[in-house]
């Protein structure tokens, strides 16, 4: 018997038992698809968490005035000394470090924003042009703060979406003069981004040059300085440089705290590890369920065909040939089932992504390999084992089963 006719015989056996073949394919496909959809959900959750933190900027350092106790105790600092404020000069000095790419000084306050008799309370952030890149924001229209000296107080502002909607409604906001406190600022841009930043909803914010904010809130100090390191690898160097610079400028007092995203990420690494483990658990359970499902279907299917195996032997098929027929049959079935399952799984994860765009529910490649592998392996194994048993029987016995 040639390999071609073995294949044809197996193929026609599958076509011959249409209902049974359909059920086996269904069992396989459901098993494989379940693994894929479940792991894509888990993977989606994992990626979502990673993405949320990555959008904060992984190279980001946040400089706060004052020594945080959690950063460790040093006998030369603390002990009743009042921390020095961070100033614009401090911020500019940081830029002289090679490990630092950009800085964005931050000043925050709330004030009333007025336009044509309409008024609302708004959070005002004073900063510079680099804030846009440091925070990975997008503009909806207009442009962000212009590049200029940090000490220059230009009366321009950029507003968040909610501010635009509530104060201007259908009116054009760009170019209008917005009154903040006692000063007037020309609106030069609207921010498209959503989400929160340093505890403030971007959509609810008005951004003005840092010098203007200092004048508006009548303060010479800064709330924070955001520092972007040149690369992820230089984050630690940048942290040291920042501390050294400030220390030098503050008469040797290390009175700032530098928070790196790394330390945040380290905390969330633990969350991620838990998520990954949960994902592995989900995958393992669904793989096991799929395997057992396929095993059962195959065991029943082959034991129903003992008589056929007996007949094939009587007609002159050796044991090896019979095994080859069943192996071929199981391989076709398992591969097709796995492929259908892959298609259903892809469709399922696509639907999840379409329904919940925030959740990047992509099937991890190892889940695809694992699910297909388990399907084909259990499919083949659990058709070969009973077929082998049946082929080992005397044809007489096999034929007597009707």
């Amino acid at each position, binding site marked *: 018997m040639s390999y071609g006719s073995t294949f044809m015989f197996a193929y026609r056996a599958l076509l011959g038992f249409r209902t049974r073949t359909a059920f086996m394919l269904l069992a396989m496909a459901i098993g494989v698809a379940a693994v894929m959809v479940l792991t894509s959900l888990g993977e989606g959750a994992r990626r979502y968490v990673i993405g949320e933190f990555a959008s904060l900027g992984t190279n980001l350092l946040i400089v706060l005035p004052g020594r945080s106790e959690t950063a460790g105790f040093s006998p030369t600092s603390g002990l009743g000394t009042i921390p020095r404020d961070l100033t614009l000069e401090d911020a500019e000095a940081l830029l002289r470090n090679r490990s630092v790419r950009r800085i964005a000084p931050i000043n925050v306050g709330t004030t009333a924003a007025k336009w044509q008799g309409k008024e609302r309370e708004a959070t005002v952030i004073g900063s510079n042009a680099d804030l846009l890149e440091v925070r990975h924001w997008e503009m909806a229209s207009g442009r962000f703060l212009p590049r200029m000296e940090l000490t220059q107080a230009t009366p321009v502002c950029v507003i968040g979406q909610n501010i635009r909607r509530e104060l201007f409604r259908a009116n054009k906001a760009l170019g209008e003069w917005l009154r903040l406190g006692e000063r007037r600022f020309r609106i030069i841009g609207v921010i498209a981004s959503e989400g929160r930043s340093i505890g403030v909803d971007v959509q609810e914010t008005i951004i003005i040059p840092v010098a203007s904010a200092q004048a508006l809130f009548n303060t010479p100090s800064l709330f924070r300085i955001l520092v972007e390191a040149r690369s992820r690898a230089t984050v630690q160097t940048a942290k040291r440089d920042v501390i050294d610079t400030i220390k030098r400028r503050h008469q040797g007092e290390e009175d700032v705290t530098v928070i790196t995203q790394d330390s945040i990420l380290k905390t969330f690494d633990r969350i991620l590890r838990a998520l990954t483990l949960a994902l592995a658990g989900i995958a393992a359970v669904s793989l096991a369920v799929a395997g057992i499902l396929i095993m059962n279907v195959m065991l029943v299917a082959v034991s129903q065909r003992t008589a056929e195996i*007996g007949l094939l032997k009587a*007609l*002159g098929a050796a044991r*090896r040939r019979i095994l080859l027929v069943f192996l071929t049959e199981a391989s076709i079935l398992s591969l097709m089932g796995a492929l259908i399952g892959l298609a259903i799984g892809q469709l399922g994860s696509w639907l999840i992504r379409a329904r919940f765009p925030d959740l990047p529910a992509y099937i991890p490649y190892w889940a695809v390999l694992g699910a297909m592998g388990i399907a084909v392996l259990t499919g083949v194994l659990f058709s070969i084992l009973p077929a082998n048993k049946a082929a080992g029987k005397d044809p007489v016995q096999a034929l007597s089963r009707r």
Partner: protein
Amino acid sequence: MVDIIQLSHIQRDFEVGDQTVHALNDVCLGISSGEYISVMGPSGSGKSTLLNLIGLLDRPTSGDYFLNGKRVSTLSEREQARVRNRSIGFVFQTFHLLARLTAFDNIELPLVLAGVRPVERKSRVREVLQATNMSERACHKPQQLSGGERQRVAIARATIMQPSVILADEPTGNLDRRSGLDIVTLLESLNTKGITLILVTHDTELGKRARRHIVMVDGGIKLDTRK
């Protein structure tokens, strides 16, 4: 004339619980080429076991079996399968056709197993379809055929490899009288073309048609008469 089948001191024991049942007890039998033999006897007398042994579907516990002058009882499983394929045709009481295949494909099966090329297969199947008068029904599946027609397909399948021996185990057992007679006539016509025909039955009338009668009782040959 040389015996096509030669059984010497064949013993076939089955273990049933802790008892040993002698299904065949020291059977010696010689069958010449072209003979028409009926094997009769009460159920449990060992006639089916004898047939299975001759058909290499079963192995003797002890004793020797020569087919066409060649010792086949000690052949490997693979070689026995080959002998079954080339030299022996089976006809069963319950037909044993594959339900999913058409009559044509069922008949073709031994050729497929033998590795005969597709073109040659088609023409040979058409030949035996003609010989068994089943050309019209070639594309029907077993469940669309009557019992008699199914057995014709089974006989066509048994003859496709041009075997030297046809073993028929109660071939009319599941058929009404008329189609049963029909089937026996077909088998007998094969015998007149030189194929050795061994027929197991407990229908005495049917058994009498053969030229040589073997009666088995308790695993042994009790009577062996020729017309």
